């Protein structure tokens, strides 16, 4: 009953008028940016991060979290109605759009809404039981274990991104680590890679890197493709029949379970969870023969998994202190800006913040359900805004956001430089998301790496003798070996054909 007690404590903090308002703002903004193509949670959180400096800590974090999980629902809506794929709604485009073609848009949206709510609720239970327990395990982590965990995260995050090659993601994460080493070395006080520019002695700003690589590069890509979406104009009949409703529940529960689990893993999150849920439906659903041609299960399972994973991916961040994907890396930055170090001690030191955030996630689920399911047709009107209005505005917000960190206009130059690099990376098929993860974890990785070697007097065996890091290193090695084998096999197939 401890958990119930703690959750009640959390609701007391989350149900203040102010925090409710921030939660609602976060959910609405999240849904809107989830709907619109080319504005994901990553660019939105990096745009809004500097603007949260003047907001109280719990409100700011509740709002940023709301943007993340709100975006998952918005993603599904635009995938179902218009087949716009976002990173986390690729699967929703299959069955969701098929349902729209059959005139069952309302049913698909209702399934997604209800399943998201179920996924969110299950994830809250997982979050409030697993996070404190994992926090206790994390107290056993030494520097070598932290290093191994971060490296595993770098390998996995590359695997999850669209290209599927571990090497691409690993390379980008390590480039991020190198960028993170710009500035003053903490141990020796020596300036590194500052090019003798005084403002670089503090390092490159996170917001500059994030906005350049995500917002700017993404705008340029959208402008290049000039794709126009015709706004959805069909009719929406929301309420399902009882037989249809009964089909939603089991697949939503399966999706919640797999989503909650996949959200916990390094590199995990909604992007991975949707595929897991779809694979599970294909294996176990009673209606699996309908999958692919507009089955309710194809929408419900992935929507539940998306929402569940978006929430459980907070667990490694809050109980170990290591973010597992790029959005969580930005959340880590938000915590640190507010003077809070996520990690094993956070739940003990800031129980009001932790439980308040957990409770707000469930309140967010309710808000999303109440606001969005009946009001979805009004939300879809954002597609009437032409992109020619949207992108100059985003550029302006990029400038204001970069400026507001240090009240320094020169930092916008750095944003521009990273915009160019971001676009180059995009065109070369390299994803920028691992770069942000590496950039934020870089200084932490270096510190732990040096500390581990100091403890072992320079011997790398410390990574293999400690049980936790030995396990993690084995997993990394298995991952890399599997990639090499898969590549060689692929090559053989190519050579034969």
């Amino acid at each position, binding site marked *: 009953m401890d958990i119930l007690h703690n959750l009640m404590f959390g609701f007391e903090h989350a149900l203040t008028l102010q925090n409710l308002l921030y939660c609602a703002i976060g959910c609405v903004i999240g849904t809107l940016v989830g709907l619109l193509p080319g504005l994901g949670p990553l660019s939105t959180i990096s745009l809004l991060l500097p603007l949260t400096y003047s907001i109280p800590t719990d409100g700011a974090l509740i709002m940023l979290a709301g943007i993340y999980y709100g975006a998952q629902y918005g993603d599904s809506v635009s995938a179902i109605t218009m087949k716009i794929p976002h990173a986390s709604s690729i699967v929703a485009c299959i069955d969701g759009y098929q349902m729209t073609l059959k005139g069952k848009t309302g049913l698909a949206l209702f399934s997604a809404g209800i399943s998201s709510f179920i996924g969110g609720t299950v994830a809250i239970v997982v979050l409030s039981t697993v996070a404190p327990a994992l926090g206790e395990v994390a107290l056993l982590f030494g520097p070598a274990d932290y290093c191994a965990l971060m490296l595993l995260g770098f390998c996995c995050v590359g695997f999850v991104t669209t290209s599927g090659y571990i090497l691409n993601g690993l390379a980008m994460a*390590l480039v991020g680590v190198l960028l993170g080493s710009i500035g003053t070395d903490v141990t020796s006080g020596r300036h590194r890679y500052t090019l003798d520019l005084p403002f670089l002695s503090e390092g490159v700003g996170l917001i500059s890197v994030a906005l350049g690589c995500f917002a700017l590069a993404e705008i340029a890509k959208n402008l290049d493709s000039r794709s126009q979406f015709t706004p959805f104009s069909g009719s929406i009949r929301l309420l399902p029949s009882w037989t249809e409703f009964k089909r939603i529940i089991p697949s939503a529960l399966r999706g919640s379970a797999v989503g909650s689990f996949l959200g916990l893993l390094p590199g995990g999150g909604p992007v991975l969870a949707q595929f897991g849920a779809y694979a599970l439906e294909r294996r176990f659903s009673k209606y699996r023969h309908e999958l692919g041609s507009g089955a309710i299960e194809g929408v419900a399972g992935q929507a539940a998994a998306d929402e569940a994973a978006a929430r459980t991916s907070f667990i490694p961040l809050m109980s170990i202190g290591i973010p597992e994907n790029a959005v969580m890396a930005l959340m880590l930055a938000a915590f640190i800006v507010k003077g809070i170090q996520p990690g094993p001690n956070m739940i003990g030191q800031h129980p009001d913040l932790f439980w308040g955030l957990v409770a707000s996630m469930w309140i967010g689920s309710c808000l999303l359900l109440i606001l969005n399911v009946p009001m979805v047709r009004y939300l879809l009107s954002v597609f009437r805004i032409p*992109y020619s209005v949207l992108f100059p505005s985003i550029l302006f917000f990029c400038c204001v956001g970069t400026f507001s960190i240090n009240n320094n206009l020169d930092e916008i130059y750095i944003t521009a430089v990273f915009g160019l690099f971001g676009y180059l990376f995009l*065109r*070369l098929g390299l994803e920028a998301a691992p770069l942000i993860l590496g950039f934020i974890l870089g200084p932490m990785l270096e510190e732990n790496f040096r500390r581990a070697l100091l403890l072992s007097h320079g011997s790398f065996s410390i990574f293999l003798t400690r049980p936790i890091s030995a396990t993690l290193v084995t997993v990394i090695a298995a991952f890399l070996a599997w990639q090499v084998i898969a590549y060689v096999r692929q090559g053989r197939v190519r050579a034969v054909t």
Partner: protein
Amino acid sequence: MNNQLLIRGLLLVAIALWFGVPALNYQVGTFSRAGPGLFPLLVSCIVGLIGVVMMVRGWVEKPEPITFKVRNIFILLASLVGFVVIAEHFRVIAAVVYLVFVSTLAGSDYSIRRNLLICAMLIAIAFAFRAFLGLNLNLI
């Protein structure tokens, strides 16, 4: 030389050299007493190695062309740089007008009336930011 993998590898090797060579000049130290150069040097070596692997793959495999369109990204960067220059030497309002009118050149259609409306909206937002979030912009 329009080969995505080859250029990707070249870029990674270039980044590795850019960070790795100066790292040699910072004190490297030993593994037990690492200097400031050791960690960046190690990481650059791995990045360089991955870059070489990609270059080799680029040589062996069927080339996949890259599509790098200079125009749009250049317009975006020019509008950002111009924004900073105008905002520093003049006023933010003028910079916003410049940003909107130059950046929309990259869009599919151009409308002066719409641009004026966007400018008005963004300037209003800038005033709101200054009033409510205490943003220190020299607007007028």
